[in-house]
């Protein structure tokens, strides 16, 4: 049971997955783990959202999936970024930064 929990904004999960996959192709479990680690255990990805999200992104052509061997030598499905995925990452990063800046501006003490 995770102790800290943050609700992910709609659409942010896409961005996180895309960013995580820039390192190397990985399977769903690793993706979730990496996001959790990199966010200092703040962002806990729910499996119930992760997999439908991965499937949706694959459907959209941002991710490509292939079956390979995991570290413990088991069959696992590895996701990797496609060209469209990289482009999407750039766009979404830009949007995210703009939104963040805007929110920060709003939150600044007047």
């Amino acid at each position, binding site marked *: *049971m995770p102790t800290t929990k943050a609700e992910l904004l709609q659409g942010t999960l896409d961005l996180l997955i895309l960013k995580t996959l820039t390192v190397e192709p990985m*399977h*769903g*479990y690793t993706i979730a783990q990496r996001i959790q680690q990199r966010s200092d255990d703040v962002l806990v990805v*729910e*499996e*119930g959202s992760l*997999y*439908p999200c991965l*499937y*949706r992104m*694959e*459907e959209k*052509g941002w991710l490509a999936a292939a079956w390979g061997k*995991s570290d*413990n030598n*088991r*069959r*696992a*499905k590895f996701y990797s970024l496609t060209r469209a995925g990289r482009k999407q990452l750039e766009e979404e990063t830009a949007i995210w930064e703009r939104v963040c800046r805007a929110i920060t501006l709003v939150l600044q003490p007047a």
Partner: protein
Amino acid sequence: MFFMKKLSSILHRLRSLGQRRTAKQEIDEELRFHIEQRTAENIAAGMTPEDAAREARKRFGNVQSVREECRETRGAGFGEATLQDIRFGLRMLRKNPGFTAVAVLTLALGIGANTAIFSLLNAILLRPLPLREPERLVWISNPIPGYGLPGLTRRSNLLDWRELTHSFESLGAYIGFADRISYTLTGRGEPKRLEGALVTGSFLATLGAAPGLGRGFLAEECQRNGPLAIILTDRFWRGQFQADAGIVGKYLTINNKSWTVVGVLPPSFDFSSTFIPGARSVDFLCPLRDVPGYENWGNMMAVVGRLKSGVTVAAAQAELDVLNAQLQKAHPERGMFGSQVMALRERIGGSFRRQFLVLAGAAATVLLIACANLSNLLLARAVARRKEMAVRVALGADRRRLIRQLLIESLLLSGLGALLGLPVAYLATNAFAQSQAFSIPLLQSARVDLPALSFTLLVAVAAALIFGMAPALQLSQATPEEGLRDAGRGTSSGRSRLRLRRGLIVSEVAMTCALLIAAGLLMRSFSRLLEVHLGFRPAQAAAWRIAPNRAFANHQEESAFYRELLDRVRALPGVESATLGATLPLELNDIVRVHLVGAPSPPANMPGIFLREVGGIDYFKTMGIPLRSGRDFGSHDAGSSPKAIVVNESLARTMWPGRDAVGQALVLEAPPDPPVDCRVIAVVGDVRQSALEQAAGPEMYMMDWGGRELIVRTSQALQATVPAVRAALREFNPGMATDEFKPLEQIIDRVTSPRRLVARLLALFSTLALLLAAVGIYGVLAGSVNQRTHEIGIRLALGSTRGAVMRLVLKEGMSLAFVGCFIGVLGALALNRAMQGLLFGVSPSDPLTIGLSALLLLGVATVACWLPARRAARVDPMVALRHE
């Protein structure tokens, strides 16, 4: 780019549809892997394996719903969801067995009728002839103004055309009078009379119909003293020789001569049903041999041509027109009439186009009426299902998904209907194809084949969309609030639904009315046709096709043979009179030219004259043709000179207007024979020679002993006399084929058969339509009474009489029927022109037919309205009010 993405996504979808199993397994495997990873990590963190697994599963949450969601995104759910809809739809249909049975049965009849009509239409009008490049084939007829004859051409013309034209790759012909030659097969069991067709050596090559076995005719087989060769038709080969391929190259004894079987026609090319529908099926083809002087015999060749590629029918026509004018000038003795070139396909099926289009229209109308009915039933059910839909919308169901599910239910209904309709169509089509009763070309090749099946599929889908769309759209408009309210009674949407249902009823009644009128007109035409004054009495008379099984040394011997034959038949009990003839009325006729003695050539406006060869005395008595003046043929007229002839009233009127024809002289010209001097001994009544629809032309009768047809008139039931006549013939000339017996009424049946077919089918369709319309009216009114039970209860409680309630309901239904009837009559009048060419002796706006049709329809509608009206009147106000 977008397109490519779309395409790859579609491909992906399709793939995943095909590998549904694998996709599902992959998702499961992926999710399982995740849980196992987590479990492993938990163990590594120090949990017991059981706890680790439990924690991992707990953390994952609902595996099932994640899996579903993945599948849905992936498109793997597409097929799944459809299957789900189908299962759900089937469950709904099972839950309402009454509704399902009615819907499927009506659709089965509607779709079956359409498939059957399409199969006939396809065979007769659409399917290309099973010949090489059939679009280049033409028929060249020699139209004789005023006569519905096949338009045969003389051989000399054919030879000239072949030599002098450039439009044709080749020309071929068959002899239009070939059935006058009798063939008897011996040496293979009982002697058997065969039907042969004489064709030119180029006939099969022109058509591009290569024999399925063996070869075509060689040039030497078409020469005068060449070897005797025949090509069997597929049907004869199968029937007589059990499809023994070894028959090719063997000899058959026909008319005591030895003929080599050189080939067998392919099953796809049915000579009889293509060229001479309704006649006795041809057993073999034999080459027309080169007999000197043959080219100058009369018009007897039915000519087909293969156009050179790129040459149009019009160009060929123009070339022949020019050539014919030159030939006419060079050879006035040929008495050429002209030539008309038309596509062979058009010639063979074209004259039936209108009939079959009307039938197809009628079948489509029946299906439309069935659809309107179903739409109405579904709309009625929609009232009950609105709540279900509203709840589903409230629970988040996608509207598109609802429409899809409702349409799938409709498709299931029409699919089941089509499945049930196919055997109906199959049986009906085969019954028509196998029936010899209809002289309609290519009818025998009608099959429920692949195009017909595709058509059925198309019709089923179209029907489902037509009857399912309106209810589906209406239902999917259900709003979540409605789920909480009572289903839309008295709301405005309820009223618009009622308007739609009434509109459907009106259109249904209108279509039924138009169909009834069309059927009525055709049936009246048919009965008018049967009332035509034939000029002879077919009842209680029959004709035997006879062929003596012996040779005659001379003419005297032959005459004696036939005279004796007639004496024997005449002596039989029950036989009133008997005679012989070369041909029968309404079958193929000879046409000759005559001129008056002294006049050098026939009068310019003189049409050809039908010549009927009478083969014995008592001809007019046996045929039932009335003698107007003069005397019947006697035995001594057989070899008389001048030749004794009998003329009909038309000829007498044309040649000797206002004078008595008896005793007049005329000269008969029938090349290549020398002119014959004739003297008229009697005038008889006119007989319809070529078609019932066509008034008689001038006709003359000559007598000589002999003939192919033995005609017998009986004083008792025809069938009772048949065995006696047959026995007498067999005793008189053992081996004479005696099984071809046909009541003269059968000739009438044959020539009226296309009309009979169309009239009967249309009557059947309009009866179906009438039933459907009645069910439709009843359904809507019963539904409306059901819905208004409460209102009716209040009316009764407030003192309205039961009669008034009944009138209220009757008025509601009958006003729809009246409006529909009115529109239907207008529609029928507007469609007049399509019917014009199909009618005989009745106007397309015949008030009697229209009136009777409307009356019948309104009568049936009244019954359909009366039942719900009675139920409304019997409503118990207390029960009705408590019902709420």
